[in-house]
């Protein structure tokens, strides 16, 4: 009998009853070690508990996440990278701070080392931390404690090394030195300067409080922990709003409810500190957590205790000092609404300095609408014109109300209807009344202002008619939203949604409307996935119960937009088909609803680059528009724009241009007064001019649009985008410095109106990165790109497609600096993810493939590159005009790859092809041509 292996013995023994196994094995006459081993295996087999009994992934959590905490006492005298920890300076829930010294330094310069109580596990978390740290390290200002170093220990414990500031906090310092009120203001202005410097670098502190504002022995203010609050924010990859750690006494209202953090958030914190510095106590917080109504001077009475009195002056003196300007400055800094505050710390500092030098301050005793209303009293005639603007609003109201009426046309509700109508009328009358009392300003109050006033009225009033209030919030918020006034619309729509959830059933049209608006808001902020979730859930819940098909159509429209913006085109096309069917069965094929659905379907087909469908739909749309509205009509103009878009996409630029030029001619006849459509048509014209290669004409058209913004359409939303586009064109024209200047303007505009970390600033930061790359200012370019990427990640979560696309210019920078491996590292995963949602000939996929090929060349993987490039070149040629710009670079890469594998003849052909293309470009890219010439010479 052949000898059995251990495995065979084991298998055989397992077949036997447990108590007979030993006997059977003994009978096999085995070597003692073999017998022992089989017995051991059998015992282990019988053992009931094993880590192998639970799937690995279930145990991964425990393996990856240590529960360790640091024992402070034992950390003293230990080393962290190059630093020895000396003594504990302070600790909180989020971090411990130690005084430390550098081990290798010649002199013992002391620093502060902050160990964050947060572990970073994944590559991405680590990268985000490092990127943020990089941004912070670039912050250099005499009033800001510098971030010197930092990193992550092998354990994933992040730490920061900062300038060690020996000093006391601002409030204590003022008290200890018995500073006068003016001296306090001067000191505080330094604080604002520091904060402002950071704001200009688009860094928000998020946790302004006295403990973070130290004054050193020489009386210089040093701000600590800039941006650290953000580093502690673990929620960065969640789609929900983030709730970073905060100090409740100094936090702004928006920090409590997770709204956007902007520079105005820091202004609020500064306001609280200033209040404490001057008055001795922090301001009382109202229900909205703001302090809009309080006046600092009212806190001071003649009975004020010594303890409260901060400065060496009498209580009446203090009261006099505060009353008026300082009251107003504090009130503006401490407004509950971020928009009502100083836009930046710099503005606050400027007002304080104006006060100190006896100039009038900018802070006003009342809010914006009060001023507007004052204006209206003086300009009755002009206000009548505004009535026309209001008609649009009234129209929407009536429409909304009539819908509700149809829905609830029952006798029992007749009284309610009457009450609603009355309340609506009262509301409108109030709106006019507000506009009848006011001060001077030289402009007619815009629709924006009137809507804002109306919104405020509804938000704070109409408590006795809650359902009407929801409707009006929906209507006004919705109108603001469609005008691009998202920040005005947000509080209204948030309130509407909350109230709708509380008071209405999913069968109520306004319930669905509130959800739709809220989703639309998310879409406006590029948060597509949350928008899709909201809408899908709302549509399901209101399924068949909601009698109002127009609102249902609106919901579907928002859904389709969100789907298409997040590149889910198939889903979006299905949604529009659903809309077209619903509109047709409910309202008929000739209804305006059907036309609207067709219009959207056309747009989505365009976005989806579904050429056949787009051709069909845009032809239908233009024909229907001409028949229905006539040639000179706004909607016909829009249908023309849709057709122009098709022509551009289908690479029929000359057809597109003919139609665009005709649209531009119609424009003046359809709208003698410049309005938003002028912007749209001219933007479209500029786009086709760009496409037909007429970059100069395109730039001129955009310049024309800019003139509209500077003149008749002043204050109209979208100028930041325009300037950004113009910057991008200058980039194409290789006029880099001009591009940068335009981009800087766009960035300033967007930051001022949306905040530094808003989705609107991200594309501008993205082009900024590309412009700076061309100017070879790589570190700055990197900073801008990373910032843009962070914004997208924070807004749309880790799967953000927009964040992903930024990997491309990032890799480009790595390539230009010669870091091939690094570029490869970032481009490979990016390419995998891009391919999940895009076709092989998608522009971004092509660009990523080219970057990968270039990286392969740079890392000397010539054969790989040479293998990839022919397919890539073919795909680029097939993709048409959207990708032709990639061709010269791709040919050059091919030349490099071929040269690398020793095929010089083919390399020469590739270089020469690239050169021919480069010479045909307008403007001619001399640098690129020089590079190609050099390579060709190198081949000889």
């Amino acid at each position, binding site marked *: 009998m052949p000898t059995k292996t251990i495995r065979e013995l084991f298998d055989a023994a397992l077949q036997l009853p447990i108590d007979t196994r030993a006997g059977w094995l003994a009978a096999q006459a085995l070597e003692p070690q073999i017998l022992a081993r089989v017995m051991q295996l059998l015992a282990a087999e019988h053992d009931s508990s094993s880590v192998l009994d639970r799937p690995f992934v279930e145990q991964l959590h425990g393996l990856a996440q240590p529960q360790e905490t640091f024992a402070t006492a034992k950390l003293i005298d230990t080393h962290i990278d190059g630093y020895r920890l000396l003594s504990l300076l302070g600790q909180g829930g989020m971090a411990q701070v130690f005084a430390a010294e550098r081990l290798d330094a010649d002199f013992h310069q002391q620093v502060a080392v902050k160990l964050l109580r947060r572990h970073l596990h*994944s590559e991405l978390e680590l990268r985000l931390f490092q990127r943020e740290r990089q941004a912070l390290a670039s912050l250099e200002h005499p009033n800001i404690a510098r971030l010197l170093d930092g990193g992550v220990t*092998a354990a994933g414990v992040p730490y920061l090394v900062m300038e060690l500031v020996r000093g006391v906090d601002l409030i204590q310092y003022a008290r200890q030195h018995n500073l006068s009120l003016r001296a306090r203001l001067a000191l505080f202005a330094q604080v604002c300067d520091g904060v402002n410097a950071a704001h200009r670098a688009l860094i928000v502190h998020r946790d302004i409080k006295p403990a973070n504002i130290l004054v050193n022995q020489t009386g210089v203010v040093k701000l600590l922990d800039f941006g650290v609050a953000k580093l502690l924010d673990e929620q960065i990859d969640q789609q929900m709003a983030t709730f970073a750690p905060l100090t409740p006494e100094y936090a702004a209202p928006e920090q409590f409810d997770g709204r956007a953090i902007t520079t105005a958030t820091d202004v609020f914190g500064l306001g609280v500190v200033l209040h404490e510095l001057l008055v001795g106590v922090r301001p009382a917080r109202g229900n909205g957590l703001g302090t809009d109504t309080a006046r600092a001077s009212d806190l001071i009475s003649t009975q004020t205790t010594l303890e409260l009195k901060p400065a060496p002056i009498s209580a009446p003196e203090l009261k006099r000092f505060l009353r008026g300007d300082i009251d107003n400055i504090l009130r503006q800094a401490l407004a509950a609404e971020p928009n009502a505050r100083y836009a930046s710390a710099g503005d606050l500092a400027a007002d304080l300095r104006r006060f100190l030098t006896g100039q009038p301050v900018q802070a006003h005793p009342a809010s914006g609408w009060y001023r507007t209303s004052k204006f209206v009293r003086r300009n009755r005639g002009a206000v009548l014109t505004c009535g026309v603007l209001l008609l649009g609003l009234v129209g929407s109201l009536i429409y909304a109300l009539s819908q509700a009426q149809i829905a609830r046309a029952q006798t029992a509700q007749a009284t309610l209807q009457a009450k609603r109508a009355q309340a609506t009328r009262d509301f409108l009358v109030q709106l006019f009344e507000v506009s009848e009392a006011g001060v001077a300003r030289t402009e007619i109050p815009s629709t924006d202002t009137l809507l804002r006033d109306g919104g405020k009225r509804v938000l704070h009033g109409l408590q006795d008619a809650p359902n009407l209030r929801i409707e009006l919030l929906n209507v006004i918020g919705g109108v603001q939203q469609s005008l691009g006034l998202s920040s005005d619309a947000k509080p209204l729509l948030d309130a509407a949604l909350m109230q709708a959830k509380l008071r209405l059933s999913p069968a109520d049209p306004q319930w669905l409307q509130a959800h739709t608006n809220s989703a639309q808001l998310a879409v406006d902020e590029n948060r597509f996935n949350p928008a899709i979730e909201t809408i899908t859930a709302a549509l399901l819940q209101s399924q068949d119960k909601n009698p109002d098909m127009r609102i249902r159509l609106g919901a579907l429209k928002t859904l389709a937009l969100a789907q298409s913006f997040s590149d889910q085109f198939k889903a979006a096309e299905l949604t529009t088909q659903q809309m077209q069917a619903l509109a047709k069965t409910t309202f008929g094929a000739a209804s305006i609803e059907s036309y609207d659905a067709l219009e959207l379907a056309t747009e989505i087909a365009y976005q989806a680059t579904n050429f056949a469908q787009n051709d069909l739909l845009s032809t239908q749309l233009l024909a229907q528009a001409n028949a229905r509205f006539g040639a000179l009509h706004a909607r016909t103009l829009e249908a023309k724009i849709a057709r122009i878009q098709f022509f551009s996409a289908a690479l029929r630029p000359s057809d597109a241009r003919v139609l665009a030029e005709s649209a531009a001619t119609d424009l003046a006849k359809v709208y003698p007064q410049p309005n938003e459509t002028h912007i749209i048509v001219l933007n479209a014209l500029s786009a086709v001019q760009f496409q037909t290669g007429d970059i100069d004409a395109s730039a001129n058209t955009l310049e024309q649009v800019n003139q509209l913004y500077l003149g008749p359409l002043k204050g109209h939303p979208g100028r930041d985008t325009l300037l950004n586009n113009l910057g991008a064109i200058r980039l194409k024209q290789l006029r880099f410095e001009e591009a940068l200047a335009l981009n800087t303007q766009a960035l300033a505009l967007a930051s001022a109106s949306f905040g530094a970390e808003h989705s609107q600033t991200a594309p501008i930061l993205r082009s900024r990165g590309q412009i700076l790359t061309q100017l070879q200012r790589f570190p700055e370019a990197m900073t801008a790109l990373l910032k843009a990427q962070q914004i997208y990640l924070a807004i749309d979560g880790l799967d953000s497609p927009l964040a992903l696309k930024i990997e491309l210019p990032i890799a480009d920078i790595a390539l230009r600096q010669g870091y091939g491996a690094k570029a490869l590292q970032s481009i490979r995963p990016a390419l995998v993810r891009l391919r*999940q949602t895009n076709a092989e000939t998608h522009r971004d996929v092509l660009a990523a493939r080219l970057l990968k090929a270039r990286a392969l060349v740079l890392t000397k993987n010539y054969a790989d590159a040479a293998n990839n490039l022919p397919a890539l070149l073919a795909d680029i040629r097939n993709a048409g005009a959207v990708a032709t710009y990639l061709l010269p670079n791709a040919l050059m890469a091919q030349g490099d790859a071929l040269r690398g594998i020793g095929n010089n003849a083919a390399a020469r052909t590739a270089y020469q092809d690239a050169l021919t293309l480069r010479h045909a470009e307008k403007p001619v890219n001399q640098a690129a041509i020089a590079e190609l010439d050099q390579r060709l010479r190198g081949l000889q």
Partner: protein
Amino acid sequence: MPNSPIDALFSTVYEELRSAAHNVRKRNQGDTLNTTLLVHELYLRLRKSSGVEFANKAQFFGYAGRALRSIMVDHARSRIAERARVNDIAVLLSSETTPELLSPAHALGLDTALKLLEVDDARAAKVVELHFFAGLTLAEIAEHLALTSRTIDRDWRYARAFLQTALSDSGDGVS
């Protein structure tokens, strides 16, 4: 060869699983993960995307098991490195891993034991990767490998016993 197509596929699977495991862990803190869902979902997703092609489903699951095994080793290494380092700089107050859960030392021990098993009985080692790591049931494994479930069942019992003895020889003292 880092650029051979096989390795590119493998690194894709690895990257995807790593981030998927991480994401799921972040989203449902405290909840345990459903391996089967995680792995099957990834398979569907990768198959949909045009860039990734697998010869067959079995190939994919093979990669997934292997990838999760590397993930285990990565995590364990970094935890152990962290300890070695932390012994220098600080003391870990508590490290509560229940004995029947994987500790870092266990994890590395397991990886070593698997290498031994690969030599001793390659198919049994494969079954561990597919069952323990990739989360396939024994029946599914039998189907993918075109073997009877009786065979796979035996493989698993042998592998489990083999690894268990290796783990109790070396593991516990360190954790």
